[in-house]
């Protein structure tokens, strides 16, 4: 996935002369996850540049650059370090189009490696997507697989609105067969979910790193004769209501899976939408399998926190036997 993202940045920089890439250590080092590797060499340090260590400034300056007609793609080095930028993101980036009545728009992307499962230290495994989803004026995009990451990042950079692009870092090294360009041509735009596995008995609604895990669970369930459909949301805002409702109405059962903590997590939003629009098709209550309402735990016990195949299967079991 890291390579796919790298390619997306490369192609965007090549095709869009207004695209910029900035952040800490993204230039010469190529980013701590190598996502920006080689870009500065190819496009020069005017368009691909390192910034001082100042997240609020990275966001605020990106806004200023956008006002000056550029398309900045800024990186927050880690999820846990994105918080100093929240004021600029929430108070300004999300609101500039609205405040200016459409005269000043903010076509920028803020890329944030997020979520856990990589044995990292404190602050390096946060799942902050709900804060951004809850802020009107931001789009929130979360790829789950390499080829989709390519397409989604390219779409995000081209989007006229600010996009918070959350990259599941545990999937950075995941591999996928296929061609990027072909994938890109067929890639769904922002705001469209994808059924990554069809099934008739239950829908798992999920995103990011949990897509792969849900697929693993679905595979196991299949052995027991339960066919699980896995729906990858791909963007939380805007949410693809049509696909969500279509799938759950068909299967009649839904389980929402995300790594972020339970209370007020994005899963609650998904459940509310399902109840509102699929009430007459529900055979069982809609369940969530999520991180617990604790700070992300030390890596030595993180496997008990992140939804496991076992926990997902238990939920699928409960709804299919309701």
């Amino acid at each position: 996935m890291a390579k796919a993202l790298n390619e997306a940045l490369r192609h965007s920089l090549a095709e869009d002369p207004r695209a910029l890439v900035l952040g800490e250590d993204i230039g010469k080092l190529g980013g701590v996850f190598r996502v920006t590797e080689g870009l500065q060499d190819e496009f020069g340090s005017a368009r691909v540049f390192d910034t001082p260590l100042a997240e609020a400034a990275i966001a605020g300056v990106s806004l200023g650059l956008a006002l000056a007609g550029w398309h900045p793609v800024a990186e927050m080095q880690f999820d846990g370090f994105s918080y100093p930028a929240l004021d600029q993101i929430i108070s300004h980036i999300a609101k500039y189009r609205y405040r200016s009545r459409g005269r000043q728009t903010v076509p920028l992307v803020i890329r944030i490696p997020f979520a856990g499962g990589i044995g990292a230290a404190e602050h390096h495994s946060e799942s902050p997507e709900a804060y951004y989803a809850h802020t009107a004026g931001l789009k929130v995009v979360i790829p789950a697989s390499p080829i989709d990451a390519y397409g989604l990042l390219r779409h995000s950079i081209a989007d006229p609105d600010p996009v918070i692009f959350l990259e599941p870092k545990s999937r950075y090294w995941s591999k996928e067969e296929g061609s990027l360009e072909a994938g890109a041509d067929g890639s769904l735009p922002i705001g469209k979910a994808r059924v990554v596995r069809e099934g008739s008995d239950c829908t798992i609604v999920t995103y990011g790193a949990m897509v792969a895990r849900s697929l693993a669970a679905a595979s196991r369930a299949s052995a027991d004769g339960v066919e699980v459909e896995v729906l990858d949301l791909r963007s939380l805002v805007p949410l693809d209501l049509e696909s969500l409702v279509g799938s759950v109405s068909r299967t009649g059962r839904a389980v929402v899976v995300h790594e972020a903590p339970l209370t007020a997590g994005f899963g609650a939003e998904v459940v509310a939408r399902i109840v509102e629009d699929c009430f007459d098709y529900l055979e069982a209550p809609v369940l969530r399998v999520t991180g617990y309402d604790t700070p992300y735990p030390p890596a030595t016990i993180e496997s008990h926190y992140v939804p496991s195949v076992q926990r997902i299967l238990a939920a699928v079991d409960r709804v299919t036997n309701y």
Partner: protein
Amino acid sequence: MLPLEGSAGPDPTSLGLKEEELRELYRLMALTRRADLEATALQRQGELAVYPPLIGQEAAQIGSAFALEESDWIFPSYRELGSAVVRGVDLVEYLAFYRATWHGGTYDANAHRFGYVSVPVASQILHAVGYAMGAKLDGISLVSLVYFGDGATSEGDFHEGCNFAAVFEAPVVFFCQNNQWAISVPVAAQTVAPIWRKAQAYGFPGVQVDGNDVLAVYQATREAAARARDEGTPTLIEAVTYRIGPHSTADDATRYRTADEVEAWRGLDPLDRYRRWLAGTGVADDSYFEAVEGETRDFAARLRAGVIASEPRPVEEMFEWVFADIPPHLARQREEALRLASEDRKDGGRG
């Protein structure tokens, strides 16, 4: 530059300004003073929800804004109605922010190159820096001037902005109106290091100027703009002035400062001072001042009428500029809101 009293002050021909420009500075300050008083009165009459008066700071704003080129960008905080006047922003549209009509007011920032009111203190500094960096990338020669107060120099965004501007050699003028007060906190409790000297930490010049001397402000800003434009070196200007009025119409300044202090600064009124010099040098005469006085009356009357006549925006607009295109979930919400609003109108309701 302008004397407080007594001596004649600088020779008008030495400033690189034409006589009509010298008179224009006064006219702009007078219009600003009058508009500011009118806006305060309008709030007290229930026509504006709140208003932060700038009375006493006219020279700092007019002098600096006047020193810029038309192509330069101004990023204001929330008290720069004077700079808006210089840029030709329609004040009824500017005050739409304070009338709670729309968060940015209703003017077009691009048309005047004067940004929207930024309430979170110091946050606009980063936007100004980013803008300057963007212009520089395009090889466009322009200056980004950002206004902020003494309190803002304590915020992280100020430091991050100064640092970025220095590192990237961005053409920025950091203009601090040190009006001595951050609501009720005096500048002595705000910072130990003098504000102008903070620039040294970032590696670019800092200057302190008498903010109530419009010519001095003009001069300092002109130099800083040239330095930014030609060398890519930012400057921090600390304009020493005084906030004669309260922080806003919701503030009671008598709780934290003395009437004596305010009166002392009233005696240093920037308009009076400049007027004396204009009259003394013969650049302007009584008939000019009378004409300006008449113009400010009309200006204020038009402002009053325009504010009073302006209506709340239609409910549809609440959903209009969230995204470029309205996504399905939001379209549904808009439908509901509009339906309720039209039922409400049928009931002859709240409107």
